[in-house]
């Protein structure tokens, strides 16, 4: 598979692949990196938003 890198498109067989993820109440994020001889040449991230900054509408009227 060809990977877009800082050095142009490269076959992934030539690269070291590293992956990771973060999962918390706010997001689920995965990322993938490709390294060439110790140099980062590609990094992508996929962020899934979980929690919206919703707000509560208060009841303020006094009758």
């Amino acid at each position, binding site marked *: 598979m060809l990977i*877009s*890198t*800082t050095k142009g498109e490269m076959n992934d067989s030539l690269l070291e692949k590293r992956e990771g993820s*973060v999962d918390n109440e*706010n*997001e689920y*994020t995965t*990322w*993938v*990196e490709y390294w060439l001889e110790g140099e*980062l*040449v*590609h*990094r*992508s*991230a*996929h*962020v*899934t*938003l*979980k*929690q*919206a*900054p*919703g*707000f*509560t*509408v208060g*009841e303020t*009227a006094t*009758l």
Partner: protein
Amino acid sequence: MANTQSMCTSFLGELMTATHNFGVAPTRGTTAADTFKAALYFASATINASTTVYSATGEIGNSGSYSAGGTAVTNANPPASASGTPATTAGTGYWTPSANVGWTGVTAAAFDTLLLYNSTQSNKAVSVHTFGSQTITSGNITITMPTNAAASALLRLVTT
């Protein structure tokens, strides 16, 4: 039967369609939905509840398919409202973009924020969504939207 003081659940959804106007609002030439956009900001920027309009200050630079202002979000589903528990007092108005947003071929230093704003209404800010800081190197960014439901939508107005 008894009466119960509450904000009406239907009103919460209608707020998102500008059905009610308690003040002076923009004159609308159409009933069509506005265009909303999503832009990304560096972790070093200051985007928060005090943000009133989109600004290029602190926004990630033009790279790959990303350009200043970000991209329009797909809006195929109108706002909705749903009763909570108890239905006599609790409800939620909610809305979520109907598709994910993403950019390809991007190189960007650490960013951690998506600003949703209304490009039809003078780029007025809507909401700020933060996530863990990410750097992108000749890569892709995808922001997946949450499920469009009362408990999880991207935008929610809630009474309890």
